[in-house]
């Protein structure tokens, strides 16, 4: 039996519930949480090996054969995502232990983080589009609570908007599902793909695809990202990093899955729109990043830029471009988590959010400063680090397909990323030291460890590109040829 597939979903949820009973034992909570996440990481690594060896594996819940029952599917792409998100969560938790404070720990924060991870893993692994909706909702419910937790004025205000946007988004998702069901009479993704391929993608289905596109781009922060900077900067840093690493990426994953598996037949309509949206996202995100002087907002706009960049790969749609997207997605999950943790630490150390009020941090915390520098280089895409291969592959793909406008936008955005992050580096890390040695806050060791570990991950993704590319190629192969996926799901039934 392939019950191992469901473990990345069920273990976090199960543990989250157990933690509710241990409300007053914070140390026990921490131990259990981190052990769980390490266990999930190991399981997903094992799963990755298994999928690599045996091809796509699936699990039909309670034995209902597809297309009738709900099922979980593990292909290389989804397992790669699960693995990355679990590892990132481990380090974010490590950071959270040292900074988040007693008050949050008493309010079930680890339970909700685990629920969030459960929802995210579920969204990656599910093979049924309605189940995708349910996992989205689990993830969003956890995120609503995490945004609002703490109950400060700003938090409540922003979380209300965040929740409202997402509730309406979910309603639109359901509308799309209703139309999809009335047209193709199935909700299994592979089965949908098969029927759409058989019947041809008529305008009705294209419209449904576009409605789904709007929903996922709302979640991913593609063009419709106006909610993102507001709600991502209010929760505690570790939660911000988790949101930055996971939430938008689930949207991106759903977009890639939808438009490679289910609706790849009308690229002149759908992929053009994706391309336009990706370009617009990059331009608007760059404007935001350039205009802001708040470190948190700059980091938040960098998420938006990265989402646009990843979707260039999808819009172009050649094999190397999609490989680039997958690779860059993995890189971005790690790097964005690290960026948010670092920026949050700057705010924690100085108590200021505007870059004009910080200066000379590198004198006080040299290692911290250089890790920031490293992250910046990785995000810009300097060769030995993790961002490079993804950018090259996407670039190569766009040249193959002749979409020079997107190519130009993508690489121009790298420059803007460099500029906006360098702005932080120059004004906050260099310059006169304003913190004297007496009132310098010590840097928590656990969070330093998580910085170093994430930075090492980043270097490893860059240097180990050869090994990783084997998996990425495999994932891309399945994405480019949806028939492999469809056959794996429907063949035995």
């Amino acid at each position, binding site marked *: 039996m392939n019950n191992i597939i469901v473990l990345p979903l069920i273990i976090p949820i199960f543990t989250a519930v157990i933690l509710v009973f241990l409300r007053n034992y914070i140390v026990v909570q921490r131990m259990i949480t981190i052990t769980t996440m390490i266990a999930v990481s190991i399981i997903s690594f094992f799963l990755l090996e298994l999928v690599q060896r045996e091809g796509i594996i699936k699990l039909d819940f309670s034995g209902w054969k597809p297309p009738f029952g709900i099922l979980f599917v593990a292909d290389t792409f989804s397992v790669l995502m699960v693995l990355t998100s679990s590892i990132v969560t481990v380090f974010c938790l490590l950071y959270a232990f040292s900074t988040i404070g007693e008050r949050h720990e008493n309010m079930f924060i680890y339970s909700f983080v685990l629920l969030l991870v459960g929802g995210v893993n579920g969204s990656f692994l599910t093979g049924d589009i309605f189940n995708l909706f349910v996992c989205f909702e689990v993830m969003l419910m956890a995120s609503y609570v995490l945004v609002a937790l703490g109950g400060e004025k700003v938090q409540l205000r922003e979380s209300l908007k965040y929740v409202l946007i997402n509730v309406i988004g979910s309603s639109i998702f359901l509308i799309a599902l209703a139309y999809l*069901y009335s047209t193709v009479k199935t909700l299994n993704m592979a089965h949908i793909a098969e029927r759409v391929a058989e019947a041809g993608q008529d305008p009705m289905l294209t419209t449904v695809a576009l409605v789904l596109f709007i929903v996922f781009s709302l979640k991913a922060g593609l063009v419709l990202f106006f909610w993102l900077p507001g709600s991502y900067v209010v929760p505690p840093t570790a939660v911000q990093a988790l949101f930055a690493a996971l939430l938008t990426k689930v949207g991106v994953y759903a977009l890639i899955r939808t438009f490679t598996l289910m609706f790849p037949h009308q690229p002149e309509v759908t992929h053009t729109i994706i391309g336009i949206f990706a370009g617009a996202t990059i331009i608007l995100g760059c404007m935001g990043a350039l205009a802001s002087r708040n470190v948190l907002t700059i980091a938040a706009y960098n998420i938006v830029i990265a989402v646009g960049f990843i979707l260039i790969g999808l819009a172009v749609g050649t094999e190397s471009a999609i490989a680039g997207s997958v690779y860059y997605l993995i890189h971005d999950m790690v790097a964005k988590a690290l960026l948010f943790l670092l920026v949050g630490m700057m705010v924690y150390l100085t108590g200021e959010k505007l870059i004009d009020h910080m200066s000379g941090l590198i004198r006080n915390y040299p290692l911290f400063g250089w890790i920031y520098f490293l992250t910046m280089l990785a995000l810009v895409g300097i060769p030995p680090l993790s961002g490079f291969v993804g950018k090259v592959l996407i670039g190569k793909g766009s040249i193959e397909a002749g979409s020079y406008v997107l190519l130009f936008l993508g690489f121009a955005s790298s420059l803007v990323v460099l500029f906006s992050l360098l702005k932080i580096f120059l004004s906050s890390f260099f310059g006169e030291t304003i913190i004297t040695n007496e009132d310098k806050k010590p840097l928590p060791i656990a969070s330093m460890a998580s910085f170093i570990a994430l930075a090492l991950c980043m270097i490893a993704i860059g240097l180990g590109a050869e090994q990783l590319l084997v998996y990425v190629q495999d994932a891309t192969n399945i994405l480019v040829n949806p028939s492999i996926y469809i056959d794996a799901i429907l063949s035995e039934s």
Partner: protein
Amino acid sequence: MIILIGILVSVATYLILSRNMIRIIIGTAVLSHAVNLLIMTSGGLKTGNVPLLGHGDGPFTDALPQALILTAIVISFATTAFLLVLAYRTYKTNGSDDFNELRGMSDE
């Protein structure tokens, strides 16, 4: 049914676009009901028997949309309840239920 859904959606849109918090929340609730009805129509209306053991035979209605609606109702119920609590707390701390006064910049 289609007309009813249309009316519900337009009412919901009107309510969501207003500025008062409670109206917006009621709007989202109405919207979710409209969507549930839409899912119901997707299975076809009045086309067969109750899909239950021992309740007649012959062509059964498609049970899947009903299962979907049940799930959607549970989720929207949870979200609406959470929204109400959140709105109440926001009203308490911020002292206003008008979204115009809750605007606030991110660079405060």
